[in-house]
């Protein structure tokens, strides 16, 4: 009885650094030696994919980057996957950022999918990176009212010289606004969705998914659920990448934490019943 108590006591007061090490191993090991568990497609991802798939060629899509560098490991794989889809559908991509980190990821997405950004022959005709607009939601309101409100793009080219920008007069000219964010989607629904009736798709971090649900599917037609959503989209566009590679590690980490919760609660129940 005393030995069991000592063992339980040790387990209850384990050094947190042991837990950190276990988590590190659980995440690191599957990345080196993947198991290859199948990844199903969720309704949110499917909704976004089907909507883009149904858009006619030449339609305008706005990629609105409201993400910081902190959420890049989750959001950038999503961006790469859906930008590849937009390219395959021959849609016109306008990239704008409402967070200062956004333009860098917009630039990287163009280089990864098209092979080059500002130096590409189709830059300014089929896609453009407008850079950062300061001001938060006020910037979104201004941009939705007039997409040509800024003078120059991220690389310093005049807006007047960019062929892709000329037909745009308001947010209504976009067939879809894809929001890449780790903070909130509500502001985009407020400034693009409700006033102009533009459908919104969310490439969001997993944290944000619970807050997207009240708007889904009426205002937000589809969403990518963090790294899992990126993996699903990579499967759909047949472009396996780092998101898919990370799914086994995600599974291992989730399983580890669930085991922790169960062990912790079993120990708690046993101690509680002994006391009573």
């Amino acid at each position: 009885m005393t030995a069991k108590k000592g063992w339980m006591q040790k387990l209850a007061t384990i050094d947190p650094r042991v837990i950190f090490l276990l988590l590190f191993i659980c995440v690191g090991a599957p990345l080196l030696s993947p198991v290859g568990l199948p990844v199903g497609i969720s309704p949110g991802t499917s909704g976004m994919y089907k909507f883009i798939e149904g858009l006619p060629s030449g339609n305008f899509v706005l990629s609105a980057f409201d993400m910081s560098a902190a959420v890049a490991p989750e959001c950038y794989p999503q961006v790469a996957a859906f930008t590849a889809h937009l390219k395959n559908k021959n849609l016109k991509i306008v990239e704008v950022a409402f967070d200062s980190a956004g333009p860098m990821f917009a630039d990287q997405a163009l280089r990864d999918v098209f092979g080059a950004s500002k130096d590409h022959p189709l830059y300014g005709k089929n896609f453009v990176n407008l850079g950062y607009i300061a001001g938060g939601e006020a910037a979104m309101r201004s941009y939705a009212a007039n997409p040509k409100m800024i003078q120059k793009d991220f690389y310093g080219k005049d807006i007047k010289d960019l062929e892709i920008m000329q037909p745009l007069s308001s947010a209504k000219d976009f067939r879809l606004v894809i929001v890449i964010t780790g903070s909130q989607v509500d502001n985009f629904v407020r400034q693009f969705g409700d006033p102009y009736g533009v459908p919104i798709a969310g490439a969001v971090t997993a944290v944000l998914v619970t807050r997207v649900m009240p708007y889904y599917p009426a205002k937000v037609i589809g969403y990518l659920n963090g790294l899992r959503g990126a993996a699903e989209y990579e499967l759909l566009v047949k472009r396996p990448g780092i998101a898919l590679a990370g799914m086994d590690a995600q599974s291992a980490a989730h399983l580890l934490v669930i085991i922790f919760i169960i062990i912790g609660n079993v120990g708690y129940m046993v101690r509680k019943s002994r006391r009573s």
Partner: protein
Amino acid sequence: MAYSFLYKENRAYRIAEHIYLGAGTGYGAILSAKYVYDNAWTPLVKGNTLWAIPLLASLLLYFYFSKKHFWIYRIPTAAIIGIGTGIVVAADFRTRLTEQISATLLPLFIANDPYKSLNNIIIVFGVIGSLIFFYFSREHRGPVKGMVNFGKYILMITFGAAFGQTFMARISLIIGRIQSLYLWPAWILLPSAAVLVGVAISWDRLRQKKAKSATEKK
């Protein structure tokens, strides 16, 4: 360096933190300056003199550092806050209130679809119960108390889902970092970092042992 914090708060972590602070601030400053230069300064120089007004108003912001004339800083701040508040509230009334009320008005009984009917009942009474839960002006009694309890459990499920999603998000970030450690030039950096970490931990433990034995001797 950042992950060294998991062992103990140390200088390497603080240096990483300060590099991040300096780099992030510097980068943000450049992007903001570029925005002002392209969209206000360049048109002003080209002859559109109206842009002088916001640029001069922006200079008033720097009275923040004056004790005597601090009140001047309030003028552009009031403009930014006023416009920002108006933009958010006007739209919020529709998006987060009336549209959400409208989305909650769901049919409670759909013939031949008991699953959807049940879901609609949970959503409607869940929203009402959760809203009443936060009404503290009167004691909750009778049927209202039942609704409040239902709302409470709905909120617990919401927070549970939020925890699950939040954990998933953080693990994704860890996966991203570890994936980058497996790429070149991390093949050299990772073993070097492991050796350095091992040396640092051993040295720290040795130091702790020495300090402990010195205290015991006293």
